[in-house]
């Protein structure tokens, strides 16, 4: 199985054995309550220098409130998993929280461009599907997974992928290195206090992120009982033992949507996109992050009950989004 081509991009070290040992020694195998505030969860579980994955994005069932909390706590030197996302990477770079990004798709914007030129931010190239595959490899406890895409691109040399001769078909096949982030944050519809969590509808990689990552924070629109989880186990997306903290975060995806629960706020979306395109998040961060101390305060002071009622009302489709 010859190696035919190798990307030269730096990538998070592939080490499934160490991840196994981490799971054995640090993951909460027993059922213990993990309910805590956003502040506490981020303080405890997001460390400077972490490889950091968030699932979905700031507009689509993403952990927007947790992203704001990470910025509020001025975390540093994060390495971002930049797949299927618009503004969050730019926000995190502009806020001084991140200096490396693996890119599937991000809203790049002038700020990141400047940071790259000034060597304050490093970029590694992938695609959305290769990044989700890397997380899947990480979630399967494997060192890599093969794929039939990404070869031949100009991203490949800036990645950690390799092309090898498949020992079965003798054809070239790409290998994507497993990704086991230090920390992942995921926003879900429902979770119990232990972290058994349900996502309704489509998603990107919530289960993969949870199983692949050393430390996992789940924020949930609703906290439900474990009895409710056990009533319909086919709906469980994430098992408790993958989860280190459960944060109750109603409207946690605002200004984004949580499908079946509330619509996005188009004004809020456009405001964030505008900041990104202008390459200036200062006013945005001031208003949406630094001006408040918590998500509760944010909802009360910045979003307001009228807006919350409106986006709930506008989400008229409920079919398929309940157990």
């Amino acid at each position, binding site marked *: 199985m010859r190696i035919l*081509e190798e990307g030269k991009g730096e990538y998070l070290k592939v080490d499934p054995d160490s991840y196994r040992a981490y799971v054995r020694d640090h993951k909460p195998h027993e059922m213990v309550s993990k309910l805590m505030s956003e502040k506490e969860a981020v303080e405890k579980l997001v460390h400077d220098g972490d490889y950091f994955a968030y699932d*979905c994005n700031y*507009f*689509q*069932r993403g952990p927007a409130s947790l992203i704001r909390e990470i910025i509020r706590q001025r975390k540093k030197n994060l390495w971002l998993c*930049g797949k*299927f996302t*618009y503004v969050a990477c730019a926000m995190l770079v502009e806020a001084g929280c991140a200096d490396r990004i693996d*890119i*599937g*798709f*991000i*809203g*790049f914007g002038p700020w*990141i*461009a400047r940071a*790259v*030129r000034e060597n304050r931010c490093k*970029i590694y*190239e*992938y*695609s*959305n*599907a290769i990044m*989700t*595959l890397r997380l*899947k490899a990480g979630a399967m406890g494997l060192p890599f997974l093969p*794929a*039939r*895409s*990404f*070869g*031949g*691109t*100009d*991203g*490949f040399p800036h990645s950690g992928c390799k*092309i090898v001769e498949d020992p079965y078909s003798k*054809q*070239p*096949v*790409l290998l994507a290195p497993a990704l086991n982030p230090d920390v992942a944050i995921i926003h879900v519809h429902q979770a119990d206090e232990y972290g058994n969590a349900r996502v309704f*509808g*489509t*998603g*990107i*990689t*919530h289960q*993969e992120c949870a199983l692949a990552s050393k430390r996992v924070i789940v924020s949930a629109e609703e906290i439900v009982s474990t009895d409710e989880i056990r009533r319909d186990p086919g709906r469980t997306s994430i098992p408790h033992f993958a989860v280190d903290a459960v944060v109750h975060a109603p409207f946690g995806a605002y200004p984004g*949507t949580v*499908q079946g629960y509330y*619509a*996005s706020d*188009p004004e809020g*979306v*456009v405001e964030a*996109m505008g900041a990104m395109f202008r390459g200036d998040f200062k006013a945005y961060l001031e208003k949406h992050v630094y001006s408040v101390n918590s998500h509760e305060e944010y909802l009360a002071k910045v979003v307001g009950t009228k807006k919350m009622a409106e986006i709930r009302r506008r*989400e008229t*489709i409920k*079919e398929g989004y309940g157990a």
Partner: protein
Amino acid sequence: MSTPAANFSEREFVIVQVSRLVEDKKIYWVGGGGEPLSSVLLAKRTNMPNLQYLTEDGVVGPEAVVPFDPLMTMISSRANYRALQWSTMNYAADLAHLGYVDYGILATLQVDRYGNVNSTVVGKYEGGEGRRFGGPGGADSIAALAWRTILVTDQQKRKFVDRVDFISSPGFLDGPGSREKHGLPPGTGPWRVYTPWAMFGYDTDCQLMLQAIAPYVTVEQVLDEMSFKPKMAKKIEILEPPTEEELLILRTQIDVGGQVTDRGRWVELRDGKYCFAG
């Protein structure tokens, strides 16, 4: 009901063209929102109600409720309404790996002679000097794995180049055989490129070939807006303009806010001939 329209934008023209390529019996993977999704939604509302498509978030065969809120083309209740199946992104990639995706439709920033697509950087990559964009997103998987990829782009010199500044998503790379050499499945690749002014196919040597033009431009105008001279089909066809019915659906049901179509020039029917307005 199939009256040729007297007034439409270039964007509307290209959406309608692509929508007419769409077939009920095929499965599409639609990249992002914009023209590709609008084309498919239009097709579904004209004569292909059973059309099936998937998107990156692992939705199979939705009956989307349009219009969408800004950017809400995936992981949203309206975009994913009444799907046949809901899943996640790796599942969409699995289906594409398996060969279920007959056609992929992509909007592109820059495209070249071999159908290679750039959505990463215009200008120099190293040192971050070029103008940087968001990356391939899901487009790389579509371009690699769909049997036929339909590209949608602008008819502009800087977007239609001999060699893209950065291959974000693969076309035919360096020509026949080079996709396979890099591990991509055989029999796949770019199939059509649509611009508001023209439609291109590919010759057997994998090079772009002009096949048809819009009724409001000449071949010369098209070639003037390319950085290289494409191969030319033996006969250059004239594309049919949108019908009033198609435009009505597009404007009242799909692109209600004009987010997708409100760019580019307007075209009007004047003295029996289509030409740019104003």
